[in-house]
């Protein structure tokens, strides 16, 4: 995740759009930018997890039986300096939802919101996957949230990253992952359209962190299943971003980009305790 931060701070208009999919070496808690780490006491099971503070907002996420993704869009002319990019959320999430439906899950966007600006932070659940915003991806009649994303703007670009929850974690047993949920064979018709971002033609760079896949506990019964879900997520994100930005993806390495990683620790607890 520190690499996501480095990508955002180093991006230039000459960069391509960069997409990453990765897992974590061991179960780790990432908290939203403005959350207090002390509040994890509200949730049993989180106390002993290593943790990091994201640059994005929202609730805390247990990175365990899940895949993390990020999409970086470098700044271009007329890019807004504030607020979220709704189109990017919907492009990514709708693509994943549509592909999950072809596999038999009743997946759709939540279109509901637990956030109330009049409430204080403690009124919201500590964990991201217990919160709801309209673009969250939910599955089944109980609206189990299995994908949540957040964005961060800067002068250099827009970073969106998210967590695709595949299985329940022992650190957060109240959260069902996709593979904990039954399939629904009813067909699901979807209406909607994706708006296009204005601006120049963009290129895309897709970086699969293959060397990180062996760390931590395994999601499926075999690496083959995990590889399949990684490919599913990569493919779905590529489709979604392509529909929005019309870019051509190619597999690349982070070393293809010039990154100033001074001061960015890539291992250990990167973010300082506050």
């Amino acid at each position, binding site marked *: 995740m520190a690499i996501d931060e480095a990508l955002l701070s180093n991006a230039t208009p000459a960069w391509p759009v960069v997409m990453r999919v990765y897992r974590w070496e061991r179960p780790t808690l990432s908290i939203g930018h403005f959350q207090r780490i002390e509040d994890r006491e509200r949730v049993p099971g989180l106390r002993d997890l290593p943790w990091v503070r994201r640059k994005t907002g929202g609730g805390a996420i247990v990175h365990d039986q899940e895949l993390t993704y990020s999409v970086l869009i470098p700044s271009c002319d007329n890019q807004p*300096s504030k607020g979220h990019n709704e189109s990017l959320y919907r492009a990514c999430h709708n693509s994943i939802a549509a592909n999950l439906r072809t596999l038999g899950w009743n997946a759709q966007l939540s279109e509901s919101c637990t*956030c109330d600006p009049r409430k204080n932070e403690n009124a919201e659940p500590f964990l991201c996957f217990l919160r709801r*915003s309209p*673009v969250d991806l939910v599955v089944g009649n109980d609206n189990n949230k299995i994908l949540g994303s957040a*964005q961060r703007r800067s002068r250099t670009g827009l970073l969106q990253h998210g967590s695709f929850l595949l299985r329940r974690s022992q650190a957060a047993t109240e959260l069902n992952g996709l593979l904990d949920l039954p399939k629904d064979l009813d067909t699901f018709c979807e209406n909607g359209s994706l708006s296009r971002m204005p601006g120049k033609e963009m290129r895309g760079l897709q970086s699969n962190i293959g060397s990180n896949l062996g760390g931590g506990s395994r999601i499926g019964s075999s690496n083959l299943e995990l590889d399949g879900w990684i490919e599913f997520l990569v493919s779905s994100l590529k489709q979604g971003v392509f529909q929005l930005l019309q870019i051509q993806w190619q597999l690349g390495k982070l070393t293809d980009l010039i990154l100033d990683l001074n001061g960015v620790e890539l291992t250990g607890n990167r973010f300082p305790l506050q």
Partner: protein
Amino acid sequence: MSISPEHLRYCESHEWVYVDETSGIATVGISAFAVAELTDLVFMALPKVGQTVTAGGEFGEVESVKAVSPMYSPVGGTVVEIHSALVDKLESLSVDPYNEGWIMKVKMSDPSELDRLLDWDAYSKQCSH
């Protein structure tokens, strides 16, 4: 005194500044356009009193429901006052971003930096694009 948006100067990133000609203190906030772009605000991180800010540099952050966005200072100088109560009543930004919604006050180090900012007409034109 009630601040009118037509009499303010603006950054391209939608922060506004009002200067008290007597004291030379600059009051900074974000525009109605920015508030509308941000949609539902849930948190704001303010600078600290005594902090040095630079023209065009980040001085704080604001979280809306689905994004964290930076706020950029229109002028450089030293923060002399912050609107701490604003954090608990962010909805006032939707009602009156130019008076109730002020964010910080800065003792300017270089008032000529104001000349680089947009006036109301230029800012309005930018927002309409």
